[in-house]
């Protein structure tokens, strides 16, 4: 037993100081190891970060590729989307170009998509 009632107060005091020193050393040691490990983690991932920062992205000028039957899988789809945008914007299809069409991953739940489709069909 580290502390008994019969133990003189001086001895109890010294024991408690010893535990305090041990406790603070352990707390500091564990957290210092964590801190250094974090530095290590940072260095491990540093190269990638610095490369990303030091080399600014060069934006290549967008080349306009005429829409032809060869480079488009489904010309009907493009025509449909172009017409839909024009109808939504209230503008003409001559006012803009459709440069790319990328399918997006389904982010919403199936219920949200169903609800949105329902709203759209009500507007039409």
């Amino acid at each position, binding site marked *: *037993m*580290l*502390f008994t*009632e019969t133990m003189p*107060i001086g001895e*109890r*005091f010294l*024991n*408690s*100081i010893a*535990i*305090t020193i*041990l*406790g*603070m050393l*352990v*707390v*500091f*040691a*564990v*957290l*210092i*190891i*964590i*801190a*250094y*490990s*974090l*530095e290590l*983690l*940072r260095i491990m*991932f540093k190269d*990638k*970060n610095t490369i990303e920062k030091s080399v600014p992205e060069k934006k290549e000028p967008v080349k306009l590729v005429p829409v032809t039957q060869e480079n488009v899988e489904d010309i009907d789809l493009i025509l449909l989307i172009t017409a839909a945008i024009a109808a939504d914007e209230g503008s003409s299809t001559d006012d803009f170009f459709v440069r790319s069409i990328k399918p997006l991953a389904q982010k919403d739940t199936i219920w949200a998509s169903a609800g949105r489709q329902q709203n759209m069909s009500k507007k039409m």
Partner: protein
Amino acid sequence: MLNTLLEGLKQFLGNMGFAAITPGQVIMLIVSFILLYLAISKKFEPLLLLPIGFGMFLANLPLAGLMAEPVGTLGQEGFQAGGLLYYLYLGVKLGIYPPLIFMGVGAMTDFGPLIANPKSILLGAAAQFGIFTVFIGAVLLGFTGPEAASIGIIGGADGPTAIFLTSKLAPDLLGPIAVAAYSYMALVPIIQPPIMRLLTTKEERSVVMEQLRPVSKKEKVIFPIFVTALVSLILPSAAPLVGMLMLGNLLRESGVTERLSKTAQNELMNIVTIFLGVTVGATANAETFLKPQTLMIIGLGLLAFSFGTTAGVLLGKLMYKLTGGKVNPLIGSAGVSAVPMAARVSQTVGQEENPSNFLLMHAMGPNVAGVIGSAVAAGLLLSIFG
């Protein structure tokens, strides 16, 4: 017939709680009303003080037997089931609720500021000094080693850690220690600022810190796994707290378990908080609470908080000197945990000097390091006295 009526009335009156109430219970009921008042009107940590206050209220109602132990063995003749709160209390007694709360805390915590500025972790270590200084004080006042350790842990400013350690080392003191720990956590904005202002100069308080670097997802995912492995290997007794804290954090940072993360930080945490609060309050009965040592615990708890804050700010001052004025010492006080209240206090005191200074994210580093630090301290005390 009159005799039967009188006999029945006498028996009814004899079975009423009013007949059995003791002066100690009356005082405890008043204490519970004070806690309820502080929670509802003053909004002192209401999510915990309200269940604690009501648990205390329930447990001190005479003859209700909500904390009564079961009599006999289940399935055998003469078995009497224990009170409702007795069974719910097993989650505290067996050390189940505090780690579950820690899982929720982990799911709510962003360790990003700590990963971005690892040096700030040292401030979280310094602030644990309060635990050990008050431990010495409690030993000198005549408390046993395990009791003194449980009182000291109030300085960790971390309710679940304090309850976890006390339920294992000194269950009789659970009521006063939990009440003191949560009351002081609510009082952080009152206790800390005077100490912070006293120990720092105007110039130090005005330091604007550099913006933290962005932290990659890989670092955030590796961090909880690494810390769990490291702390559990050094201090196996801290594994339940740190392990669950980091599980919650991994649920958050992995990005693939959003539903589990939400459950850990909302529904599960709320359910466990109700059970924990009510049963911890219910341990405070007149025999264990109405003693001079309760006042000593409340006094020592305040000292623990103050010493922790002081040590954090002093190390902050040292870091200010060593870095040539890049660290604002005010973030040191956030090392006492009490997430995120202590970090908000650093922000508020810093803005008093310089309204355009935003210390909050810088203070969150030591703040969350303090949670790990107090869990480590608790693990160490448990391995010595457990």
